Every structure is written in structure tokens, then in C-alpha cells.
């Protein structure tokens, strides 16, 4: 902890003394001390209404001496004896005080938790076997830990709306809702789209959208993540897969320059869902729906699975050896100035480093990337829809990404460029190119995950791995270096770009000696000035600020203001 010593307060938690900064919430102090306090409504990124009562703990302070009595003597460590309060307090909305005592175990707390669980379960349906939340449900977990194991409730459960269509991506089961109000606070405070509310407050409290309105904002699916039970479910994921069957991989989102931290949930090389992963320097705890759901193409029929070479008007399957050999022989006959390379800012730093090597090795006349500048949404979506433009600028030495694409096109038409290598891009759909522009080329090579019009025109088509199928690092718009981790294996014979480029270099007479992305990372961090000295461990799961581009992430700025006002813990 970096705070001044004077700002630290002594607090006793379950008999042990700890020091925490002034203003820390009791629940956060317990968390830091490694003691779990069960809770439903509390979320550090949202205001604390203190309505679920699950986080009740025993609290005590040094008793005030009676008039005329001497104050109690501190012990040898300077701590005063604690007088325990007869009633519990909620740990989520109360802050610590000097010499405070907190007890999270013992008969009072246990009785409170049992009682709260009994109330929550009184009207909760026992449909865990068909509930998507099963396996990651706080109600299930705390019921096992703190509940009674059987119900005393013999009355009729309250009937509420089920299978309610509250928005294009979300379905609501009101009987499962435990009224924690996290989703309401999220839509009010984070998404600025306050369409959710409780109607019929009382024994029939019902989460609802207003008739004729819907929860449709581009951050709506985050409510599904923060729902502690199975009340809000994602239309995309519900009934697709049991959560305990899936493999979880921590990685980053490639849909824009923010690089939201995510978890990819997959089974047998198929992605079933993507959830945000908390990183207070990147995406807080959220991710836009449009990014989260942009993964179905990865398992689609349109994936390229084998290397193809042009045979007359169509393509035929071939082996990697043949495809690379053919490409190498075509390139060997050309001067460097007759070769242009269009790489991608969707590549990792390691792959861009290989592009740089290839360009140097071939002495290529042009190297550029395809820019994707749009408008920021004012929350998490960056104006730059490429995930690694910052890396491409640093590694390929590009001042103004995309500025050479026009010149490449002119040079092809003037016959100055005879071979074009399009790596992980599709120039016809994503840049200002048409199929005719390639007609005068002697050789066109593309690598890409999906079938696409540029590949249609190419002499050699290579199946490239997509973001979920490779590892490496990327630099986000702010200049933060983050790890991309492989979640699944690519279909068929797909290869990662660095392997493709390594083989091209090798077959055109260049060296080898690179066998893994780790080797590449070591080369990158010894050759590229901004990366020198960085170690893999240093980046860790949350990344590290490598350079400072001066860019900021709007949602984080708003969150910092809320933290400064004391509205949220953050």
C-alpha cells in the first residue's frame, strides 16, 4: 500500500489486526484481509443501496468510558479493547473506523446469513437444473455455505412474469430475481439508459422495463454478468452450454483500440460466450455488446481451412509446403521495389515484428496497414477499430497508417509493383480496392481467416488464424501493452501469421531460428526500442503502460469522477 502511514487505520478482522486506508468500506477491508463476506447487491463499480442484507457482520468499537471512569488501557500494540455491538451492520455501505472490530464468523453473523438466505429462497423457484446460472450462481453458492439445506416455507410461492422479452439480447425471469437492483443501477449509472425499474414494490416486487420500452443499449449484456442469479440471461448464450463444461481463457478483445479485457469461454475449440474481465486501467468491468457478440464467425462455415492456389479461374487445395514454395519462387524473381506488403493492425506485436523482418528481407517498396477509424461511442469503444494500431506504428515505423494504400494502388496500375502480399486483411471490402486493381499484378498472396473477395482474386490464399487462436501482445490506444492468449485451436490447417511469415522468409533465403511466440517476444523486446527490456511476466494478466499516447478511455474518466465523489469504491 502506497498511502502515507498516517492515513492507515487499525482494524481487527476475525481476531487479527490489519491496516487499511481511511474511508475503506468494511467489505473491501475484509476482502483485502482474505475474508469473504457474502453479498448480492454490493458491486464496487455501482452505488451501494445496502438492500440485500447478506453482508451483515458483527461490529465493535472501543467502549466509551462511563463518566468518572478511567479510559481503557491500550495493549502493547496500542489497540484498545473492543465492545461488540448487540446488532449486526452491513459491511458494504459502512466504512472502517480506528480500532474497529469486525467479526464475520460466530453465532450472530451465521444466524443473520441463514435468515437472509431463507427469505431469499422463500419465493425463489427451485429450477436450478434448467437454469443457465447454475454453477455460477451466488444464490446456489451462498445457500450451500450459509443456508439451511431445507425449506420451512409451506405457503404458495408468489407468481411473477417468466420468460419476459425485455430487450433484443436479454430475457428476464422475474421469479428468479432476488431484487438486488444491480441491473437497475448499472443502466442508471453506467449505461445512462435508465429503462429498468421495480414495479409493485412489496411482496410482488417485479423487475420490469416500461411497457413499449426495451433494454437495448450497447452495454445491456453487462447486466447479465452482474446478475447474481439467473434472472437475466443472454439470448445468445442461454441453453447453449453448462458453465462447468467450458474452458476459460483470459485474453483481450480485438474489436477496437481499447482492448477490453475479456474471458473467452470455449469447449472443444468452439467459443460459447465472452465475458468482460475487470481491469481498472482499460475497461473497468464492462464490455460493449457489439464486441462481446462478435465471435460467431470464428466457428462459421466461411472459415478458410486449407492453403489454396489459383488454378485457372478457381482455386484448388494444396499443402502448406507447396503454397509457400510457389510464393517464394514468385517473389524471388522480383526486385524489392516491385513488392508491396499490406499487413494488419489486427496482428499482434510479434506478428508485426515478423512483417517488419519480411519487409527488410525482401527490401519491399511499400509496407502499410489498413486503418479503421470511426467514431468513439463515448464509453469503451475507441474511434480506432483496430486493436493494435499503436503497435503497428511503433514496429513498422508508420507515421500515418493507411496513407500509402493509395500509392500502392497507383504503383500496381502503373506496373511498378508486381507482387502484393495482403496479410490478415481483405482489401476489397475493408480498403479502397476493387478486383480490377489486382489484374495487372504478377502475384497476389493473401492470408485471412475467412473466405473473402480479395482472396478470390489471389494466386495464393493462406488460412490465417484469428485472434482467439493465437497468442502475443498488443498495444491499445492509450499505449498499454496487453497479452492476447490463445483460447482455441484454429480449424483445419490454419496457421498463425508469424508462422506463415517465418516460412516465407525461410523459403526466400532468409534465416530461421524462431520456434514459438516466446522466441518472437524475446526478439521483439531486444530489437524494437520501445519494447526493450520488457518481460512477459511484467505484462501479467492486466498489462502494463508501455508508452503514453495521451489517449484516454471515456468510461474510465467518468468512473474516476464517481470514485472521487465517493459514490463508488471503483
Amino acid at each position, binding site marked *: 500500500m502506497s498511502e502515507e502511514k498516517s492515513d492507515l487505520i487499525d482494524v481487527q478482522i476475525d481476531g487479527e489486526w490489519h491496516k487499511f486506508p481511511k474511508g475503506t468500506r468494511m467489505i473491501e477491508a475484509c476482502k483485502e484481509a482474505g475474508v469473504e463476506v457474502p453479498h448480492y447487491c454490493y458491486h464496487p463499480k455501482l452505488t451501494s443501496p445496502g438492500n440485500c442484507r447478506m453482508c451483515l457482520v458483527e461490529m465493535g468499537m472501543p467502549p466509551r468510558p462511563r463518566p468518572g471512569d478511567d479510559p481503557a488501557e491500550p495493549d502493547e500494540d496500542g489497540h484498545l479493547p473492543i465492545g461488540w455491538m448487540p446488532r449486526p451492520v452491513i459491511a458494504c455501505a459502512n466504512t472502517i473506523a480506528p480500532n474497529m472490530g469486525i467479526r464475520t464468523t460466530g453465532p450472530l453473523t451465521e444466524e443473520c446469513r441463514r435468515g437472509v438466505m431463507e427469505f431469499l429462497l422463500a419465493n425463489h423457484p427451485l429450477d436450478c437444473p434448467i437454469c443457465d446460472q447454475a454453477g455460477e450462481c451466488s444464490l446456489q453458492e451462498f445457500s450451500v455455505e450459509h443456508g439451511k439445506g431445507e425449506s420451512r416455507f409451506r405457503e404458495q410461492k408468489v407468481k411473477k412474469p417468466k420468460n419476459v422479452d425485455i430487450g433484443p439480447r436479454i430475457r428476464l425471469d422475474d421469479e428468479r430475481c432476488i431484487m438486488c437492483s444491480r441491473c437497475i443501477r448499472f443502466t442508471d449509472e453506467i449505461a445512462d439508459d*435508465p*429503462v*429498468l*425499474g*421495480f*414495479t*409493485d*414494490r*412489496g411482496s*410482488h416486487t417485479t423487475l*420490469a*422495463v*416500461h*411497457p413499449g*420500452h426495451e433494454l437495448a443499449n450497447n452495454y445491456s449484456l453487462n447486466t447479465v454478468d452482474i446478475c447474481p442469479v439467473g434472472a437475466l440471461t443472454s439470448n445468445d448464450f442461454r441453453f447453449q452450454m453448462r458453465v462447468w463444461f467450458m474452458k476459460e481463457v483470459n485474453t483481450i478483445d480485438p474489436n477496437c483500440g481499447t482492448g477490453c479485457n475479456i474471458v473467452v469461454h470455449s469447449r472443444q475449440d468452439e467459443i460459447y460466450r465472452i465475458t468482460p474481465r475487470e481491469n481498472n486501467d482499460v475497461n473497468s468491468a464492462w464490455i460493449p455488446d457489439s464486441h462481446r457478440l462478435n465471435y460467431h464467425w470464428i466457428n462459421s462455415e466461411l472459415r478458410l481451412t486449407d492453403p489454396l492456389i489459383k488454378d485457372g479461374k478457381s482455386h484448388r487445395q494444396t499443402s502448406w509446403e507447396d503454397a509457400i514454395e510457389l510464393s517464394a519462387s514468385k517473389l524471388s524473381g522480383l526486385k524489392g521495389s516491385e513488392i508491396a506488403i499490406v499487413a494488419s493492425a489486427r496482428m499482434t506485436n510479434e506478428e508485426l515484428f515478423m512483417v517488419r523482418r519480411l519487409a527488410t528481407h525482401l527490401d519491399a517498396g511499400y509496407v502499410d496497414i489498413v486503418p479503421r477509424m470511426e467514431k468513439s461511442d463515448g464509453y469503451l469503444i475507441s474511434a480506432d477499430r483496430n486493436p493494435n494500431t499503436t503497435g503497428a506504428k511503433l514496429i513498422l515505423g508508420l507515421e500515418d497508417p493507411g496513407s500509402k494504400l493509395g500509392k500502392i494502388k497507383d504503383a500496381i496500375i502503373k506496373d511498378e509493383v508486381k507482387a502484393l502480399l495482403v496479410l490478415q486483411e481483405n482489401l476489397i471490402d475493408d480498403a479502397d480496392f476493387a478486383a480490377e486493381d489486382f489484374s495487372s499484378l504478377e502475384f497476389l498472396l493473401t492470408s485471412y481467416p475467412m473466405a473473402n473477395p480479395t482472396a478470390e482474386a489471389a494466386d495464393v490464399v493462406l488460412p490465417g488464424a484469428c485472434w482467439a487462436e493465437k497468442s502475443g501482445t498488443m498495444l491499445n490506444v492509450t499505449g498499454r501493452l496487453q497479452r492476447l492468449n490463445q483460447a482455441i485451436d484454429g480449424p483445419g490447417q490454419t496457421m498463425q501469421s508469424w508462422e506463415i511469415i517465418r516460412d516465407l522468409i525461410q523459403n526466400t533465403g532468409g534465416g530461421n531460428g524462431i520456434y514459438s511466440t516466446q522466441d518472437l517476444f524475446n526478439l521483439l523486446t531486444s530489437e524494437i526500442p520501445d519494447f526493450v527490456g520488457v518481460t512477459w511476466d511484467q505484462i501479467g494478466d492486466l498489462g502494463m503502460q508501455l508508452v503514453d499516447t495521451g489517449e484516454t478511455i471515456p468510461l474510465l474518466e467518468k468512473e474516476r469522477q464517481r470514485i472521487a465523489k465517493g459514490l463508488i469504491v471503483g
Partner: protein
Amino acid sequence: MSIAIPADLEKEIDKRITHYPVSKRSAVLPVLHALQHHFGFIDEDAVEWTAAKLELEPIKVLEVVTFYPGFRQSAPGKYHIRVCRTLSCAMAGSYELMESICEKADIDRSGVTHHDPIAVSKDGKFSIEFAECLASCGTGPVCLVQDDFHEAVKDVDGLLAQYK
């Protein structure tokens, strides 16, 4: 939205809103009271109108309307009756009183639910609902007709006859 708010009502509402300078949201209750007083109930259009007036999402107004049993979401009869059903009145015969009024005023309560507690007579003259304690536990069963308080009600015909 198709609700016609008379100019003097809107003027009154605007005045009430000025009483809450910190947050317009705080004016929800006074505005709803004014609307119910004028129209007799608060329908969907009135909720939307209130929300627009106070710059809120309609759900934030609906939350309030559905919380207070005092706000009606459907039209009552010409005379609205509230029968107390809290313990003392229940023991003194409020359920029998309810049945008797319904029979004599030709009110069918079979469609009443938690969300729609009001039943209206076929001729639209009377509407009825159960209410919680009306604060006269010693003289049950009691009921309110409009704003008139009736204690120890036994003569239902006589009660209804007072309202033409």
C-alpha cells in the same frame, strides 16, 4: 401520447414542481396526486406525460404509481369504496361487508388481482377495493366512500342509498 392536460391543471403542476429545486424527480408524487385528482386515475398516457414533464424514464414514474395502492391505474366508478380488511375489521366482518356491497351494487370481483385490485359495477356507479387499516379499529367494519368515513357498517342498502 394522447392526453389533454387543461391549462390550469398544468399551471398547478408547474407550480408544484418549483417546490423541488434540487431534483425534479422529487416532484413525482405531487404531480401524480394532481393528475389523479383531476382524472380519477393514472393511465399509461399520464405516466408518460409525467415522465416527459419531469425528464425521467417512464419506468421511474411507473415504479411510484405501482407502489402506492392509493394511485389507481384504471378508471374507478362514480363513487369509489374502500373496505378495510386489516385484522380488527376482518374479525368484525369486513369480508362479509365486501360481499354484501358487491351483491347489492352489482359488482363482479372475480377479475381482481394483486396488480388490478379495483372492480367496477356494471352501471359504472360504484367501484370497490380492499384497503388496509383506516384507523378506526374499535368500530369495524369500516369503509371509505370517496372521502366519507363510515363506521360499524351494517346497513348496506342505507349506505349505498346515500350516493345517487
